[in-house]
């Protein structure tokens, strides 16, 4: 299907089904129940899932395939957001030109930064990208204030020109972002018994874009180009000796992943038309590194899983407070309950970063392939139990 082999088509179909049905899947608990706070099916969060999914997919094309660890990818995300907001200010509130511009601008920046940074490898490459990203961040905060509006962040105003659109709506408010009239903020609630599901236009636009991005990344992974990138990861020197110049390939990978980041930034601005410099800070770059590694660098689905997991942690896990914990463990005797809550307390709620850090360290130490590798190991365990013949349990040699 679509030029993919059977395994990849299945994967793509699963991802399509999951993203399309996400409003149901992420809302498993009835609205009134005590567990309703673990529902992640509200538009804002679902959009973030897929947008950061795109970001991580793009990062994975660079890090997963070529092994170049960039610590400055958030710069492209920020650049994408700024360009999209400028398009909203100047041209129209339609998201298509805004997203196109953000991809193009991010691509240009990635070309320049990549051209310079890729002259070095290893830790030097990481430091160079980090330096460029911090430079962009510092500039966005200070000198480029006319372009970026400094600390306040770039926002839409009532007197923006918007050549192809309207500066303000009839009732004097700022128009909302749309896709040929389909408002991004528009949502439709479906109430089934105690459950309530929200279908947001913005989420579905993002989801479709993510599916396209995901399909692209499968094609890249399976293409001769992707194979070349893997060759660079495994042994660049040998590649040089065979007379191939790896530079154009790494640069192409860098630009592609920069454009993915720009796309994510553009979408982010399309959902919520403002852009701030903090999106470019190096901790934001660190976040996408966390996502990709957590999910599984170099795998197709890993980055999306990682992005989903981190965003879930950030938004849902962080809401667990002492009251919730007490209600969970209320079946225990009082003293025991208090001590259990006391032990768990630092790891949940505001301490979610701590849990994340610990999980991340464990993953890097024991599961270099991330959650995907963990899943594969578990699957293999089950398969081994089912099949009686020990021969079929032989694992394939690692790539």
């Amino acid at each position, binding site marked *: 299907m679509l030029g993919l082999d059977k395994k990849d088509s299945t994967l793509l179909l699963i991802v399509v089904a999951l993203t399309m049905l996400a409003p149901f899947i992420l809302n498993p608990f009835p609205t009134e129940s005590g567990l309703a706070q673990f529902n992640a099916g509200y538009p804002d969060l679902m959009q973030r899932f897929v947008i950061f999914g795109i970001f991580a997919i793009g990062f994975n094309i660079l890090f997963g395939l070529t092994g170049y660890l960039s610590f400055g990818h958030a710069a492209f995300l920020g650049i994408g957001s700024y360009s999209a907001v400028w398009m909203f200010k100047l041209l129209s509130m339609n998201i298509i030109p805004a997203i196109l511009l953000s991809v193009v601008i991010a691509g240009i920046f990635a070309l320049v930064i990549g051209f310079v940074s890729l002259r070095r490898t290893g830790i030097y490459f990481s430091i160079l990208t980090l330096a460029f990203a911090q430079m962009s961040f510092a500039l966005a905060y200070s000198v480029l204030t006319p372009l970026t509006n400094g600390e306040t962040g770039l926002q839409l105003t009532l007197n923006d020109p918007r050549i192809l659109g309207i500066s303000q709506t009839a009732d004097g408010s700022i128009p909302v972002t749309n896709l040929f009239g389909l408002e991004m903020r528009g949502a439709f609630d479906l109430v089934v018994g105690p459950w309530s599901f929200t279908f947001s236009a913005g989420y579905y636009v993002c989801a479709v874009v993510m599916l396209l991005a995901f399909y692209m990344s499968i094609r890249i992974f399976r293409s001769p180009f992707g194979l070349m990138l893997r060759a660079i990861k495994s042994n660049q020197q040998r590649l040089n000796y065979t007379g191939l110049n790896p530079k154009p390939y790494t640069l192409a990978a860098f630009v592609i992943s920069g454009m993915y980041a720009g796309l994510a930034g553009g979408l982010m601005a399309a959902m919520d038309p403002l852009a701030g410099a903090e999106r470019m800070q190096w901790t934001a770059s*660190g976040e996408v590194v966390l996502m990709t590694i957590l999910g599984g660098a170099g795998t197709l689905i890993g980055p999306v899983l990682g992005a989903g997991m981190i965003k879930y942690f950030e938004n849902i896990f962080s809401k667990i407070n002492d009251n919730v914990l007490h209600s969970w463990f209320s079946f225990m005797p009082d003293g025991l309950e208090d001590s259990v809550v006391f032990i768990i307390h630092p790891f949940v709620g505001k301490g979610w970063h701590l849990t994340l850090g610990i999980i991340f360290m464990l993953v*890097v130490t024991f599961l270099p392939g991330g959650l995907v590798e963990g899943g594969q190991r578990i699957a293999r365990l089950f398969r081994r139990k089912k099949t009686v013949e020990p021969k079929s349990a032989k694992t394939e040699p690692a790539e």
Partner: protein
Amino acid sequence: MDSIILQILNGLDKGSAYALIALGLTLIFGTLGVVNFAHGALFMIGAFCSVTLQRILNLSYETIDATQTDFLGNPLKVKTPYLESWFGPEMGSSIIEWSVPLAILFAIPVMIGIGFIMERGLIKHFYKRPHADQILVTFGLAIVLQEIVKYYFGANPIQTPAPEALSGIAQLTSTIVYPVWRIVYFCFSLLIIGAVFAFLQFTTFGMVVRAGMADRETVGLLGIDIDRKFTIMFGIAAAVAGLAGVMYGPINAPNYHMGMDFLVLSFVVVVVGGMGSLPGAVLAGFLLGILESFASMEQVITLIPGINQIIIYLVAIVILLTRPRGLMGRKGVME
């Protein structure tokens, strides 16, 4: 002329922080070959050592003083630190006032201990793994350490004032005045740097470590347990970062993410100085500190706006592209 001297002075105190952190980073990289992204967190923990000591010294008991009343007319509760009751009010309060310098004594064993635990517990397992993995796992560790500190001390900066005798302003010449504590910080960093170099240069232990840095395998073949020595060096590097943090408290109130802010810059410093070169790290630290303070001069900013924000990164990019081994890096080390 005065403004130039002032900028150099300004650069020196920031530069000394950079130099100390970069020195620790280089010690770890040069001995163990590990890129330690958690080094900024060690700096931060050092700063919080002094916060902890300050809190310990301020432990106090409450007494009801019948002679004083609060605005409601109730007898006032007076808190007296235990120290004041043990050593008498004057001695006690001056001990509390000197909590930051005293924290040096407190921080050294704590930091060395943390360094040991880090190396033996975690980093040991990453020697054979690629640099990217080392970066990632220490990055995770940095997050964990930062969050633990945030949990216990909160997210707001905590003031750790310098003792009164050292917190004034010094009249250096007729026109130049400068905060005393910053001069103290500079001298302190010179002392630490000198001590580390002397330790490596003039002791047998240091000699073995240097030999191990040059050729680990041969030293091992000579029957020396070089891993053990390197573990101790890791502890020392942690202590250097921690001390830099302790003394930095009065300049910038410790908060939980101060380490991350410094980490990026000190990596840049290490790269500019040359990976694995101790003198390079120190030199680059001071150089970049001074450069940064010159770039933030009024005249320079009007000439090239925003240069003060990016000068360090700009220098790093130029150096990395033109002289990848850094200012004083050895040929062939991580080029």
